[in-house]
């Protein structure tokens, strides 16, 4: 069993409305020192790697991240294998 974490974030130039609201809330709570907040998604996958090489799996994840997990119009993604 392989665990993979995929992180999806909005592209830099895209308005992050959620991040802005969170930042304002943090200031309201009284933490003045938080300057920027970016909101993203975090998807954990558990993958059966019995019959596949790590390379193959990486390719699959890359494909899935691009086509399904993120929206390339507005988001970037990155992923990491976090072990078995």
């Amino acid at each position, binding site marked *: 069993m392989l665990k993979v974490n995929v992180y999806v974030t909005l592209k830099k130039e895209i308005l992050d*409305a*959620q991040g802005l*609201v*969170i930042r304002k*809330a943090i200031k*309201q*709570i009284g933490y003045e020192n938080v300057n920027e907040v970016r909101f993203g998604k975090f998807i954990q996958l558990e993958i059966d790697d019995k019959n596949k090489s790590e390379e193959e799996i990486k390719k699959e994840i890359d494909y899935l991240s691009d086509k399904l997990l993120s929206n390339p119009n507005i988001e970037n993604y990155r992923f990491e294998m976090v072990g078995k």
Partner: protein
Amino acid sequence: MSFDKKPYFGILVFPGTNCETDCFHVLKNILGARCKYVWHKESQVEDINAIVIPGGFSYGDYLRSGAVAKFSPIMSFVRKFASKGGLVIGICNGFQILLEESLLPGAMLRNNTLKFICRYSHLKVTDTDNPFTSGYKSGEIIRMPIRHNEGNYYIDDNGLLEIKENNQVILKYCDSSGKEDASSNPNGSIENIAGICNKKRNIFGLMPHPEACCEKILGSDDGKTIFESMVNNII
């Protein structure tokens, strides 16, 4: 009932609240009660007998519904008001805020359909021994609109036992014949729960919108009884 004895409702307004005028209309024009809007930055409200936390999308519901609103100054007043036994009703987003604020037990998850739902739903009034539904018959089946993204009520096993033991479950989703099952559950809510109160029975949260069904021209006036019950219990 003399004029200045008319119950006085405070209707909270957060940025993004959008049902405050609907509540105002019902309370003032249909029930003849007094009411005023209370901006979230206020920390003290005089003279009111009850607090309404209306529906909407406070702060866009951007992080979690109700999560940001709870840090507003008004919420510590709500806490104080409630601890002295004042009546507080949270409708939809108001219910979500009460959960986030831990004034009511449990939490709200996204609808299991992952879609916003706007439609009439049948509800069973499972408890009438409280100031909010005392005007209904116990077990009565009523119709109210539901309109939400996150109405999938969740509470852990112990919590569930507790609220059941204390008769805190007040409204449940059902079908027209009163059956509560998966097919009459619109959002995945645990045991079809649509509304609960606290142990002291003076705080009530519900996902359906009673303020949207107080006039026959809108298709149902089943919701009026909730506000009438509150008025009657204030006097």
